[in-house]
């Protein structure tokens, strides 16, 4: 158990850095929009979706209707359907911890559990739970700090959101190095870029998801043939 805790801590360190900083940013924005610490805490507890929480603050300040808020959430968070689809099998038999595992499947948590494997043969069930709990704790601590210090903070945090981009880039590089089969990664990047050009930054995620799934299914034979030549995907 102790070993699992240490491994989960080590794996989540980059997320700790990113979440405390981004959670901090969220807390500040929330506070400056007139929504104090209880709001920041509730959102980080019950919504727990990084970029969507930033968007929620602008929904609140712009006085969006409930329908508009619902549709915005669908658009921004539709990618979570993807995470679910790829974790259905890996989270089978997780028992009573399963609802929390599913609830807490953020981009960053997903990036740490999506391989369905654990380093050094520790139990995946325990590992995934610890990773999920640690990550949400970092997020909550960050948003509380931001909310508390927000009104006092004078230093310039512009650009700090790049930490999450950098995290995904490193996971992407790790995945790239873990396999010789680069078709899925190339499809992911190129089809997303194509949809970004065609549909614009507000609307490209859903078409990208549809195109990527379709392409993976069309090229299934080719991809599976490649896939047999090396091991399972692994992320760090």
């Amino acid at each position, binding site marked *: 158990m102790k070993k699992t805790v240490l491994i989960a801590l080590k794996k989540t*360190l980059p997320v700790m*850095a*990113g979440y405390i900083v981004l959670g901090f940013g969220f807390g500040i924005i929330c506070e400056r929009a*007139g929504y104090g610490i209880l*709001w920041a805490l509730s959102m980080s507890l019950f*919504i*727990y979706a990084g970029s*969507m929480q930033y968007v*929620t603050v602008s*929904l*609140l*300040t712009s006085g*969006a209707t409930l329908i508009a*808020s*619902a549709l915005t*959430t*669908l658009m921004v968070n539709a*990618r979570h*359907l*993807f995470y*679910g*689809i*790829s*974790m259905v*099998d*890996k989270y089978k038999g997780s028992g009573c911890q399963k609802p929390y595992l*599913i*609830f807490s*499947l953020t*981009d960053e948590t*997903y*990036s740490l559990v999506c*391989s369905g494997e654990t380093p050094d043969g520790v139990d995946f069930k325990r590992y995934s739970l610890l990773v999920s709990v640690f990550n949400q704790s970092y997020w909550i601590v960050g948003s509380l700090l931001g909310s508390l210090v927000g009104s006092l903070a004078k230093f310039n945090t512009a*650009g700090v959101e*790049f*930490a999450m*981009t*950098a*995290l*995904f*880039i*490193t*996971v992407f*590089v*790790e*995945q790239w190095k873990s396999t010789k089969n680069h078709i*899925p*990664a*190339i499809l992911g*990047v190129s089809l*997303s870029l194509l949809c*970004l050009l065609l549909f614009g*930054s507000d609307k490209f*995620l859903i078409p990208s998801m549809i195109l990527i799934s379709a392409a*993976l*299914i069309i090229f*299934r034979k080719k*991809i599976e043939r490649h*896939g047999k030549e090396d091991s399972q*995907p692994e992320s760090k």
Partner: protein
Amino acid sequence: MMKTEMAIATVVVVALITSLLRFLPFIVFGEKRKTPKIIDYLGKFLPFSIMGMLVVYCLKDVSLTAAPFGIPELIAGASVVLLHLWKRNTLLSIGAGTILYMLMIQLIFL
């Protein structure tokens, strides 16, 4: 600013829809039934595609036609890739890339 009740309702709606999206696949492909082969296959290879999509998603609002033309993102992103290929140290890659990016947009590309 919204009325408090309306603000609470907004937060509840966002939380519910987010959870719905997270739970839906698990509800559709339940615990007891055998996962369809195609979902099995997607589960194995989607992670690679999704991570590519997430990188694009993070950079979606970068404008290539207006100053600074995505140059800070390009330099910082390339530094993360190279540093990571070289040292394979996640914390170092993310830390250095982020600091570099912050310095660039705060001091150089205003």
